[in-house]
Structures are given as C-alpha cells and as structure tokens.
C-alpha cells in the first residue's frame, strides 16, 4: 500500500513538471507577487507578477522617501538611515524577504510576520514606491561580511 502511494506521488509530480499542469491552473488564481529568490519545487517557478517601480532611480523621489522614512516612524525600528535597530538593517544590501523593488514593495505594503506593520493602508501605492526608491538609494558598504579586531 505504502509503495503504491509513493508511486502515485511520483506520477503526480511528473504531471506537475509537464507543460499542462501548473499553467492550466493559472487562470483561476489571482495575480500574486513571485519571489524569484525562493526555491521552486521541481525547478518550476510559479506564475506571478513582478511589479515595476515607476520611480526607480529618481533622486527627488529618494529624497522625499528619506523624509517619509522618518515621518512614518520607520527609523524608530530600523534606525536612522536604515542602519538597523530593533528591526533589521536596510542599508547592508541584504534582505530577509528579497531585495528586488517588487519584493521590498511587498514587505512594506503588506507587512511581515515578525512585527513589520503593513503600511499600504496608510501611505498607499505611491508612498510605498517612494520608500522603496529611498531604500534602494542607500549606499551599501563595500565589505560588510568581515568585522576584524586584530589581523596581525
């Protein structure tokens, strides 16, 4: 019985990796954001949206985002200049939940489970993109992996 079951699972997996399986379901799914950094079972990335930052790289927006980072109390958890406080550093070029504009948007807009509040309801889509643009403008130190005290 057990053997039969595992055979059935293999058969199911085989059908998943086929062309028709997942794509056949997409029509019924609402569009969601895909995390390209996550592992995908079978190597098959699920269909999903990648949002585009309409303000990407815009200096004036980044400056407005810096003011917003303070006004919305982001610095109260993530520290001045996003250098880390009770919340993680946002200035080290490393990201818990993905560092693409689309992924950072999702973290701010919807919140995260360890107490990162959802700000989408307060600052809206434009506001979140403004914050994303600011965070992406922060300079990342050249070598953050090593902290040395005595190299003699």
């Amino acid at each position, binding site marked *: 019985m057990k053997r039969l079951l595992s055979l059935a699972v293999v058969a199911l997996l085989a059908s998943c990796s086929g062309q028709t399986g997942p794509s056949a379901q997409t029509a019924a799914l609402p569009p969601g954001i895909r995390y390209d950094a996550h592992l995908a079972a079978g190597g098959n990335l699920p269909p999903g949206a990648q949002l585009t930052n309409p303000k990407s790289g815009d200096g004036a927006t980044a400056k407005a985002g810096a003011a917003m980072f303070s006004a919305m*109390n982001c610095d*109260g*958890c993530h520290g001045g200049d996003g250098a*880390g406080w009770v*919340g993680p550093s946002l200035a080290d070029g*490393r990201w*818990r939940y993905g560092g693409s504009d689309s992924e950072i948007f999702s973290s701010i807009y919807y919140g995260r*489970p360890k107490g990162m*509040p959802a700000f989408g309801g307060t600052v809206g889509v434009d506001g979140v993109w403004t914050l994303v643009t600011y965070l992406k403008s922060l300079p990342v130190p050249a070598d953050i992996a090593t902290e040395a005290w005595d190299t003699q």
Partner: protein
Amino acid sequence: MRRLIAMLSLAVCVSAHGAEATAAPVASADDGQWTMPGKDYASTRYSTLAQINAANAVRLRPLWTFSTGVLGGHEGQPLVVKDTMYVVTPWPNVLYAFDLRKEGYPLRWKYRPAVSPNAIGVSCCDTVNRGAFFADGKIIYNLLDGHTVAVDAKTGRELWNTPIADLTAGETTTMAPLVARDRVIVGAAGGELGIYGWLKGLDLKTGKVLWTAHNLGPDADMLVRADTFKPPYDSGTDLGQKSWSGDSWKTGGGPVWGSVSYDPDLDLIYYGTGNAGPYNAEQRLGDNKWTSSVLARRPEDGALVWAYQFTPHDSWDYDATGAMILANLSIGGKPVKALVHFDKNGFAYTLDRTTGRVLVAAPYATINWAQSIDLATGRPVLDPTKATGASRGTVKGICPSLEGGVSPASPGAYSPRTHLFYTSTNNLCMDYAAAAASHLRGTPYLGATTPYTAGPGGNLGGFIAWDAGTGRKVWENKETYPNWSGTLVTAGDVVFYGTLDGWFKSVDAKTGKTLSKFKVGSGVVGNPITYRGPDGKQYVAVYAGIGGDWFLLAGDIRSDDPADVRAPADYIKDIARHTSQGGIVWIFGL
C-alpha cells in the same frame, strides 16, 4: 599559610555572625528557595544562605549549563521552588521546569505557549522577559504579546491565560508580575510607542482583570480618590491630566516594565513608571505626571495612595521603572521605613515609603541635567542648558545618557548585614537632538536622535556599594562596558553580578574585591539568584545571553541573521569581539 588564612577567615565569619544577631533581620526564615523575582516582597535580592562566603568563593566553579535555544536578551532570573528550577525564556516565552533532585537536572516538563511573532517588532528593545512569580501552586508570567499566564507548577498545564495588553496599540509585556494578597499585578511596556500606560490587578484564581489603573490621565482613569490620595508634594485634582498640554496625555507613555515591590504591613504596592512620550518634550508641555514616578497603590482595588515624580517633564527618557527596594534603615539616628531607588536620571533616592517624602537624594553616577534635588519640594534643581526639545537643536553632553545611571532592567540588592545597597552602573553621556514626532498607532513615537559617548574616566560602566542613609558611595569597581546585570548579595557577604562581555563575578560585599570570575559564554543582562539544593548545598544560578538594549545598541553582537549586518557602535567598538547572542542557564557551586 593556607591553613592560617582559613582559620582567620573562620574568625571573621564568626564575628560577622555576631553582628548579624544585633542587626534587624529582613527575612528571618529563609527556606533556601527563590520564589519571586526580587527574592522577597521588599525586592532585596538578599539571601541568608552563607555556605558560600567571602573566604571560600574563590573555589566557585560551574556545575551545570543549559542552552535555552533562544537568542533574545536573557534578562530576569530563574525561580527555585522546592526541588524544581523554573526558567522563562525571552520570546517565544518557553517555560522550563528542571528537576534538581536528579543528575543532570532533566526536565520535568516544558510549556510552549502560543505567542504572536508580531510582538517581536512591537517590543521597543529586544524580546526580553523579566521573570515569573510563584504563588498558590502556580508559575505566573507575562508573554511578550500581552498575555498573562498561570501554569500549574507541578504539571506544566496552563490554568489560565488572560489577554491584558494590546499589541496594535504598541503595548508589549516584559515585566515580572507580583502577587500581593490574591491579586496578580501586571503592567505593559510601550513608552516608545505612545501608549496610555497602566497597571492591572488580576484575580489569582481565575486570571480575570479586576481593576485597571492608568499611570497618567484623569483621576477616574488613575483610580485616584480624593479621600485616599495623599501625594507628599502636590495637591489638586486630575494632576495626571492637567500636567499635560492638550490631549498629549492620551499618548503620553508611562509604561510599567520593571518590577513591583510590596509592604504587607502598610498594604502598599510600589512600582515605577517609564518615560513620557514622545522624546520631543515640546509636544507635551507640563510636568507630565505621573510618568518617571513611583506610585503606591492598594493591591485589592488599585487605589492610588501616594505618588512622587523623580523627573518632572522628562526630556531625557529617564524611566523610573527600576527596582523599588524596601528596607528599614536608621537615618540620622531615627528608624525609617525606607524605599531606595537608583533612578535612570542618576540620582539615588531614599524615600519614606509611608508618605513618599524624599529623605536623601544624591548622585550615584555622573549627572549634569540637574544640580541636586530640593528636599523641600522634591523637585530637581535643573541646569537649563541641558533642557531638550525640537526648537533647541542638538543639546550636547547630557549625563547620564538615556541608558540611565543604571538600567531599570538591572535591579540592585540590599544586605541587612552590611547595611549597604549594591547596583550595576553605566557611565555614558549623550547628545540629544529632538525633532517633531508623528503618532501612528502601533509604530514608534520617538522624535530624538541620541548618540552616546563615554562618561568621565572612559570606563563605560561599573558596580557600586551605596549607603542610602547618607547618600554616599562606599566602594566602586570600574567595568570596561556598561554593566547590565542585576545583583545578588548573601549572608556570606558575597555579592554576585555579571558583565556585558560575559564575566560572572563574585566580589567581597565589604570591599568589592573580586573573589572569583568565570566567562559564561555570552554577556550577562540577567539577575543572579541563590538557593539551597535538595542535597542541602548552596548554589548560585544566572543567565548568560546579551540583549535588551544591547540588541539595538550593539547590533554587531548578532550572528544569526545573514540579512542583518551592522557596523559597530562607535563608543563600544569591540563588544562583539568578546560576546555574541545566546541564552544559557548556569549553575555554580563549591
């Protein structure tokens, strides 16, 4: 030679015992347990156990360790009830019960409550827990996400679980409860998130909330009644509302995140309130009563009996949530029912705990925000150049820093044998740049940037013995780093404390001389305890596990999150060279 020393120290012990007989005993019948956070209702953290003494403490050695599996700052202390040791971890607030009768101290049980991970981000300053209280067969403690639980001390089964605080309003619960009569007294942290601070009294049997007393606001909310409220220096009604501009009291902070003491004879509970919020004090003009204050209430119904404000119009984040140590002292030849408190603002206060009047107030740390405390009015004599606010720009060189002359998370101790109080200290000053803060429910409500520098001498911390009758430092050990552990003192005239870089020390209660030290694997921010084991021997237990404010301030002490890498803080550059996060329970003995 060695034998001669042993004989000499024996003689010292005998004479010390002679002195004890004439001293007023605080805890006459010490059964060798540790059933409440501060050892006794008076929060003395003094044990009459004396097998370990100043002569033999050099032989102290580690006997047992246990990794809690949790990385948050391990503040607080274990409990020992009969032959079981109870340990509460930081979030996720696991409760372990160790069987002290068996080799290796295996677990009798562990209790893993369902506690929201949202609390991790709402807590201002790491996911700490400051300990449990044993009463009526129950282990009672707070979960970080705003619940108080009672667990059967024998079986580990949850008996009741009461929601007391609102995470969405910025409230978390880190303090250790106190049980007085049949009331469980609890409060919430959130002075950095614009909460409307309070204390609650729960029914010990059922956990039901029987009263809620706010620490600020109108008299009705504060459980102030004209006939029973007698503050020593103030008069009038609705002081907790009228001492605030506009509606600023509604988001004015006044959290409770330390501990509570109790005098059964006076039937009063004593606790300190935290800072006023936001840090930009110009958004809340007035004294901001009763933040940064000590309050005395009746446990039965929460009625406020007296209140005294250490830091009116707090403009420096000087919480008063540190321990209120109750002791019967002789001051100027007169016996006094005293309350002694080492405040964040750098003054040590000796109050008459019947009335709340200040008897002695003297600096125990470097202070420049005020010159002295006027005993006639109870108010600090301020240095106006150290006042802060958004319109004042950056105010430089304020001492102490907002970490306090001592952290309220680091309770001191009192020995009725030496008549001295003992406490960790910090030696930090700060610049304070206030700015307008916007209140957004459930997010930080701060409005200040406050970089630190070392105080005079360059050492960042220390440990002192203090005479609370005269307001005088008797001895001091300088420490390299801010000292963040609580204190234990025993009838063996040994004082125990730990350091931020992970040394656990025993020192001579009379001189401060180091008797033993051991590197315990992580910085110590917890409070040592002592107890008599089932084998009749005396043991000392303490947590290692750096954290609390040092999770924020020295972010480079963490190694667990590859997506959170930080530069060292410039005033404490090498702390991460000596320690990293990680909770370990240690037991020492001879």
